[in-house]
């Protein structure tokens, strides 16, 4: 049986999305995920389990990674949101996007926006993470096709490039062990 349609009046909030202030009106029971995708047309943020288990809908809220399916849109009034659409600068990809592409850290790509933002929050706070710190930071993001090794390697390579090092992927990373 279809649920009754919302009766409450739309609420209006202002928030900053990817550096731009915007006002948006929506029904009070909408999640941040729904507001981003349906009201702001930012469909880069993906809709996964809606239970807090998969990390696919991760965005940065005031710089911290959160699950946008478990945040009410109204709770974001006056706050800063960053989505995958805000990572590239014009045509220039963020180093994480570049290394995820170069190293094959994405296959179907559905989990990738969530991984990219969680990894960005990690590198913003910790420019030189160890492999274990990367694993801990990404523990809430599930990938069902790549496996995690290429994702860890892509984060490490992006971290090195963000530190200004002239880093290239290891031969083994690209071609496997000979």
């Amino acid at each position, binding site marked *: 049986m279809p*649920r009754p349609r919302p009766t409450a009046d739309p609420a209006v909030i202002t928030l900053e999305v990817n550096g731009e202030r915007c006002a948006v009106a929506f029904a*009070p029971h909408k*999640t941040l995920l729904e507001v981003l995708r349906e009201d702001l047309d930012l469909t880069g943020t993906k809709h996964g389990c809606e239970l807090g288990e998969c*990390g696919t809908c991760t965005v940065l809220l005031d710089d911290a990674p*959160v*699950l946008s399916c*478990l945040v009410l849109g109204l*709770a974001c009034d006056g706050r800063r949101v960053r989505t995958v659409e805000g990572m590239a600068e014009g045509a220039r990809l963020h180093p994480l996007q570049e290394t995820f592409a170069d190293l094959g850290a994405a296959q179907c790509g559905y989990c990738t926006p969530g991984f990219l933002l969680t990894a960005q929050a990690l590198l913003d706070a910790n420019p030189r993470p160890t492999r274990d710190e990367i694993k801990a930071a990404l*523990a809430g993001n599930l990938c069902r096709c790549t496996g995690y090794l290429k994702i860890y390697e892509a984060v490490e390579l992006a971290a090195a490039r963000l530190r200004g090092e002239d880093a290239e992927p290891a031969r083994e990373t690209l071609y496997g062990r000979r």
Partner: protein
Amino acid sequence: MLPPFSYVRAQSLDEALAQLGASDTRISAGGSDLLGCLRDEVFTCSKVVSLSRLDALRGIRDDGRGGVRIGALTTIAAVASDPVINQRYPVLAQAARAVASPQLRHQGTLGGNLCQKPRCWYYRGEFHCSRKGGSTCYALAGENQFHCILGGQGCYIVHPSDTAPALVALDATVQIAGRGGTRRVPMARFHVSPRDDIRRETVLEAGEIVTAIDIPAAPRGLRSSYRKVRARGAWDFALAGVALALQFDGATVRAGRVVLSGAAPIPWRSEAVERVIIGQALTPEVAARAGDAAVEGAQPLKRNGYKVPLFRGVVREALLALAQ
């Protein structure tokens, strides 16, 4: 999609308390468990009262007597990274780091972690189980591999919190505000066993809000730890866990508390383990006897018998690690 509701962001604690009239008004602290429950239709909700503006309920402060007061809205991530908590109460810092995923630790609050609803898949699913007012616990004859081995009666959930066992071990107190004033409840009496009332998980009454958790000064010789075993290497709820807060005099345990997670419908203080270890040095032999004591009286269900040897081992290993 969530069912429709109205939303109020309280500007003060008094306003929040005044807004909590009707039974289907719900409090939102971090909101993560609330939205999950609404999506799963565990309960209904016509109004959400958000506490997010109540900054007085956020943060970790020295209480001036060697203890700390943690505001109920403090995030799990903030508890996990707080230097004072890490230094004085490792059991709580370790438990906070073991909660859920990094994202949920940024969203979830300590008060919410104590008040979260059970994760039993029948309770969360489309089953009118005894905890929801029905007459049957579907886990009893069903898929019960993650259910309790101790303390069940009519309902066989395990309490899902990692921080609650740590706070019971530390003898913390919950501060609760209501329209009639505030009251304080020891953590050990905050959660309600199904033997006492199958329909509730905590002593909170409708219209009450958890405002803070007070942890007393660490006694001399306190050593503490939280160990959690999960089915996955990454985040998950506890299959078995143990919070230890023990006072040592040299190698001898003088006093302390041992609290199990993943064992029972409430954080399960194991006085049986405490009786074995108090007055003793934690030798391998004592630790093994303590492990056996942890599962004394356990009544495993059809599919969770593995928890009996698991708890034996977890308790033994955690005690030996703390004795190092």
